[in-house]
């Protein structure tokens, strides 16, 4: 039984009503342990993005159950009233493009979340700097996002996702714009951070070059998931 991480049982999502209704998710089961990085792979239209939006509490599923750490957050209906706070405190997001706030420097991009949650600015920035050191980009702490390379931007985005020590990180195609070397570096960092912060990481990807890095992979097709063991060789 998981004490942290994320567990999903029979998650369904239906768009529309009546004859035009579309079942995007038809009962997804998934379980990711703390410190584990799993891949979520599937063709276009298979329901990857819908699943990610449900997991990220951005859209409401139609049925099923989601447990985050010890807390049931969805059981045929949201069990938490403040989804915004849930996203801020318990879910980290890494996007295909880093989507850093262009008018904030690297440190403040990362420190923004705890600042918005009401933590003192200095304390938030200190935490951001620690993460930047861990991700080996501390030397760019005062730089603006537009002055960073693609790899650096993605590391900053990972730091932002980790700043509140969330039990789960959802990464949506995080390596898509990167070359093989940088893509593997990002996955390596995600693995390191997952272990270090005991965070469950779900990586949605099409990227063939990173697929062998996962120990477990969920294939999604027609709204259902199949679990299989991955090679996980890159980080042995």
């Amino acid at each position: 039984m998981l004490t942290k991480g994320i567990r999903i049982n029979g998650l369904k999502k239906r768009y529309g009503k009546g004859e035009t209704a579309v079942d995007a998710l038809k009962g997804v089961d998934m379980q990711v342990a703390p410190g584990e990085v799993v891949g979520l792979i599937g063709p276009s239209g298979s329901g990857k993005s819908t699943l990610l939006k449900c997991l990220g509490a951005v859209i409401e599923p139609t049925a099923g159950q989601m447990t985050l750490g010890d807390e049931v957050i969805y059981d045929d209906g949201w069990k938490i009233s403040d989804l915004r706070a849930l996203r801020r405190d318990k879910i980290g997001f890494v996007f295909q493009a880093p989507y850093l706030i262009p008018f904030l420097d690297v440190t403040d991009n990362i420190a923004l979340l705890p600042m918005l949650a009401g933590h003192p600015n200095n304390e938030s920035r200190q935490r951001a700097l620690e993460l930047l050191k861990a991700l080996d980009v501390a030397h760019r702490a005062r730089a603006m996002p537009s002055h960073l390379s693609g790899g650096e931007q993605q590391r900053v985005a990972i730091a932002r996702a980790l700043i509140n020590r969330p039990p789960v990180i959802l990464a949506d195609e995080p390596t898509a714009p990167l070359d093989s070397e940088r893509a593997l570096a990002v996955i390596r960092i995600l693995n390191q951070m997952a272990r270090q912060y005991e965070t469950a990481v779900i990586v949605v990807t099409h990227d063939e070059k990173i697929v062998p890095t996962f120990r477990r992979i969920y294939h999604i097709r027609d709204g259902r998931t199949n679990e299989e063991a991955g090679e996980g060789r890159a980080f042995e």
Partner: protein
Amino acid sequence: MISLAGRDILHAWGKFVFTGVGLGLLIGVTLTMAGVYRGMVDDAKALLDNSGADLWVVQKDTLGPYAESSSIYDDVYRGILGMPGVERAANVTYLTMQVRRGESDVRAMVVGVVPGGPGEPGQPGYLVAGRRITRGHYEAVADIATGFQLGEQIQIRRNLYTVVGLTRRMVSSSGDPMVFIPLKDAQEAQFLKDNDAIVQQRRRTAENPAFNRPGVPGLLNAAIASQSANPYVNAVLVQIEPGYSPDDVAEPIRRWKRLQVYTREQMEKILVGKLIATSARQIGMFLVILAIVSAAIVAFIIYTLTLGKVREIAVLKLIGTRNRTIAFMILQQAVGLGVIGFVVGKISATFWAPIFPKYVLLEPGDAARGFVAVVVICVLASVLAIRAALKVDPAEAIGG
């Protein structure tokens, strides 16, 4: 708490400053329009202040001498001088015309006053150069806004006048500078005909059997002489003795002299409420239109800036930023833009106001009200952008 709006403005300060300067010039025009109105009111009050009068005695049933024409006999002032509470009384005429100066001319209000010292009703309160009118004819005291110099010869109708004194801030209610000349000359100037017209009038009078009767010598000459003289003035300006109220002095003059008498308060109402009322409404319309245009521009700018940040807003919402934080960011930017615009507008208006041909009075109270209006307009203008931002779906940050 971090100021997202402040950081955004600092990041794109050039865009904000240039937009603010553009908005500022518009606000500057708005403040100047308010200043034009204030200047008109101040000109009207200056006209009353400078006349040195407590009461204006004018033709019955008229709003003269400024808002309507008024004509009363020039010997009426003698009777008024004998009324209780009257300290001084003096005839005055007003005639707005083009005063010739060499080849050019200047629009001015020609004021006919009885030559005398300071404190006499109708006389300019003070001079900045030269002396007062001491002779009965062909001397003038001019406001410096006319551009006339001491010793210069100016032409009013057919006569030449020497500028013997200069004064300041003596203007008509429409802002035209004043030229003071002796009363008799002004009376003549008001009704002076050209030579051909005089000859024709004399001929017509001579041909009229009523004026050219056989056996009545001197009748024709007397009739012609009466036609050539102007025994009228526009008003009598009255100063009252200390201890008397204007109403107490005005009432007997109204009753016994059968003339209209206005107190300072009443005259101010006529000038501000009637004479410049249309212009004030005109300016008011401009102010309303400018305010709407400013609001539309701020709304458009803030809306466009917000639409340019949809992805960032989606990310901010996805990572848990409250709607009120995002709304406050947009609101702060709108108000920031307004503040930049106001500062630029106030500075611009202060610089260009003295260049205007008529008096532009920029009052601190108007500036304060303008600032409040700008902030309110910016707040209202940001509503559209805030609505757009709040409609942004956080799911837009997630691809697919």
